[in-house]
């Protein structure tokens, strides 16, 4: 098992033990009650679950290991075990693109493939919390979890793979058609199957062709169970260079173009196109290493943030294509607290805060405390012009306050290996991407994740935030969960372990003649202009897009 050593780093330890499992009471509830055991304590006795005598039930082969292993006992013998059950009802009449019906067996197979060590899936540990997946009938799947894990349902957004093409029998059939060495046969798995080159799904488009580094070609699935797509063929083209992408778009060989902010500026003025701003989960920040003495005071961190004019940064470096970020959740999700204001741009206020924290200007105009000047290094990775701009702007802003900040940029993996993972930095410029709808921020903000190679590299430790994060993981009621995440957002924003900078939007340029077609129940078509949804996505109704001969006049 993995146990922490003296330094807190996880290391492997071989342990042999016997467990004596006592008889248990089984309770079946119609909805998840995460507070059940707390409510049982008055009946069973105060601290019944916490103070259970685990040591009596475990016999270790090597008793000297007991101190290292002791904290794992509650995991191994659950005194109060929650087994939340998620039941999925599948849509009837769904077929795979090769005509075979889609059933619950495919879902169960997907789970088995994800956790199968032969497939070496990078997502395997997300499904570790599943106790069992049961096929109730063709269209019903029941998943039982080992413990409360409210965000786990998000893991099921992962695509389902077809059992009839990838189970052991199918893999054997595939192997028999190819000539492989004995070793290759032993390691043949879902990962190495031809399926990866010719995927089969159930969506409105079926896979047609993939030419590596050229394009992926999809065709309309006429057998689709839902609204059939407008487009007959869709091509995703690979064009490595932004400038030639723009020229290809102008030459008419591209219908949709994901532009860079300054390119979108040029095209906004062109009457033929319109520019949509797509927002995805992404925010840029400056992280402070809170283990370093100068960053331990929250007033210092707030002051550093107040000195930077993020508004101008957005206007000039990003052509206005961004919004201020205020905290750890993305603004296009309900978890984000809209009442939290971004830090004001206030260099005078910053100086006042720094003075409060003991940093006064010395004879040379530099800030000093206890005889030591305020000096540190800001590091980021190469190849990213926005990060370079952030570094330069921040350095200059801090210089005006009297802080000596040096800036350095390194190649991405050197930056990660030598600075971030080894926690060997003063401050870094980075960004978090993705995981929009996941409220669980354990890896990023929990105090147990502050060691080397873990993602809470700022070293943020707050008991209240830890409690909230743990409760979020167990809270199945969405509104209650949102209240908890908003409190996390407020607390982290107040503590400023990062200076939260901005959330960029991505400009998508489309020909104005491309519209979204809506069909009302009578079958009549109306055209609607394509706009981003409140979540910031523009692709949800992609299959309804059609290119007309000329721009229509829209219904009011």
């Amino acid at each position: 098992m993995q146990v922490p050593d003296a330094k807190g780093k996880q290391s492997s330890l071989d342990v042999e033990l016997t467990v004596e499992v006592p008889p248990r009471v089984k309770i079946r509830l119609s909805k998840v009650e995460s507070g059940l055991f707390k409510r049982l304590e008055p009946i069973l006795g105060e601290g019944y679950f916490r103070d259970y005598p685990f040591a009596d039930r475990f016999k270790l082969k090597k008793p000297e290991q007991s101190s290292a292993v002791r904290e794992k006992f509650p995991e191994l013998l659950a005194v109060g075990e929650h087994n939340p059950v998620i039941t999925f009802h599948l849509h009837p009449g769904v077929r795979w693109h090769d005509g075979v019906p889609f059933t619950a067996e495919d879902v169960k197979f997907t789970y088995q493939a994800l956790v199968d060590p032969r497939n070496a899936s990078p997502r395997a540990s997300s499904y570790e919390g599943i106790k069992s997946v049961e096929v109730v009938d063709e269209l019903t799947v029941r998943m039982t979890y080992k413990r409360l894990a409210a965000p786990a349902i998000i893991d099921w957004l992962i695509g389902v793979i077809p059992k009839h093409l990838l189970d052991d029998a199918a893999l054997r059939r595939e192997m028999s058609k190819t000539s492989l060495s004995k070793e290759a046969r032993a390691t043949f798995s879902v990962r190495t199957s031809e399926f990866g080159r010719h995927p089969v799904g159930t969506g409105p488009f079926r896979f047609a062709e993939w030419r590596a580094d050229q394009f992926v070609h999809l065709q309309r699935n006429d057998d689709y169970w839902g609204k059939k797509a407008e487009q007959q063929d869709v091509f995703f083209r690979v064009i490595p260079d932004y400038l030639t992408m723009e020229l290809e778009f102008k030459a008419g060989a591209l219908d949709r173009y994901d532009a860079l902010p300054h390119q979108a500026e040029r095209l906004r003025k062109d009457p033929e196109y319109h520019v949509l701003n797509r927002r995805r989960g992404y925010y840029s920040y400056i992280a402070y290493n809170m283990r370093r003495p100068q960053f331990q005071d929250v007033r210092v961190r707030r002051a550093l943030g107040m000195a930077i004019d993020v508004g101008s940064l957005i206007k000039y470096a990003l052509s206005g294509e961004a919004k201020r970020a205020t905290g750890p959740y993305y603004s296009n999700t309900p978890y984000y607290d809209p009442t939290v204001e971004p830090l004001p741009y206030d260099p005078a206020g910053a100086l006042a805060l720094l003075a409060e924290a003991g940093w006064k200007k010395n004879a040379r105009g530099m800030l000093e405390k206890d005889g030591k000047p305020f000096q540190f290094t800001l590091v980021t990775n190469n190849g990213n012009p926005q990060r370079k701009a952030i570094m330069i702007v921040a350095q200059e802003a801090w210089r005006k306050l009297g802080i000596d900040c040096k800036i350095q940029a390194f190649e991405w993996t050197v930056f990660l290996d030598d600075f971030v993972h080894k926690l060997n930095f003063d401050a870094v410029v980075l960004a978090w991407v993705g995981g929009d709808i996941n409220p669980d921020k354990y890896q990023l903000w929990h105090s147990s994740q502050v060691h080397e190679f873990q993602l809470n590299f700022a070293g943020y430790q707050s008991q209240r935030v830890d409690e909230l994060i743990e409760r979020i993981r167990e809270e199945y009621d969405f509104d209650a969960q949102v209240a908890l995440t908003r409190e996390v957002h407020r607390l982290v924003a107040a503590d400023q372990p990062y200076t939260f900078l901005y959330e960029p939007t991505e400009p998508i340029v489309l020909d104005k003649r491309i519209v979204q077609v809506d069909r009302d129940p009578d079958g009549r078509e109306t055209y609607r202009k394509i706009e981003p949804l409140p979540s910031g996505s523009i692709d949800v109704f992609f299959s309804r897009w059609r290119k007309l001969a000329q721009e229509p006049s829209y219904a009011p």
Partner: protein
Amino acid sequence: MWRFLARTIVQRLLLLVVISIVSHTVIHLAPGEPTEVDSMNPMMKAEDVARIRKSFHLDEPIYLQYVHWVRDLCTGQLKSFRDGLPVMPKIWERFLNSLPLFLCTTVIVWTASFPIGIQAALKRGSRYDRGTTFVAYTLISIPGFFLSYLLIVWVVRIFHLPVIGLTTFGTEHESGVVRAMDRVWHLVIPSLMAALTGIAVLSRYVRAQMLEVLGQDYVRTARAKGLDEDQVVYGHALRNALLPFVTMFGLLLPGLISGSVIFEQIFAWPGLGLLGYEAILARDFPMILTLNFVAAALTLLGILLSDILYALVDPRIRLQ
């Protein structure tokens, strides 16, 4: 002659093995893991990372990883880290894309440089010579990618024609003739741009070499004998001036594998240059090592070819 060949081939093969060991060590020394091992992804836990590293043999000592690579390469089982596809078929497919571009560029460079260089040498000091010198140095100084961008912008704005890629997108349903012509059109601009610097440099060499040869005694003798100018220049002087270029010709072979990363990126040409570049960025070790190995093998073959050609062409040289 045959003894020479046999001995050289054995020596070169040994050298190839040494090169493969050295390049394997150096590539694994570089910092960074394959991008599948994403350390900044909160969804990937330590166990997942360990599992992936194990399936890529990254935990084993470096000599064992070398053995894995060589064995997989020889049995055709070598798979890329990025998409699990076999490496050699991928390289072959991209090679077939790079080949027309390479051939076209080479043909343009070698057929254009010689007349320009020879004329410049013959009319040394004249306006032609000074003009071509100026143009040559300008082309050498201006980066090729900059000129490429300008040309693409110009063609798209004025002629409204798509320039990038192997073919014009959307022409799959046209007739064979149209598609063939389309492929030729897409070949023209990238090879022209890639050839420009080559012409500039090679024509300088040709000019320098011709000048040196034209100053030799035997040329004066030939003229004194009464031969006409064409005979002197092309029959005697040029033949001798060509000797160093024969050597250069053999060394063109590795150019097949390297492709040109910059031009392939700009023109979205799916060739070997882009393949190698992206393999390096993704730390796709099997792909990088194999490309490196093939490049080394082609280089050594090219040098061997040059040696043989040189011996054939220059009667003063005899292989031992």
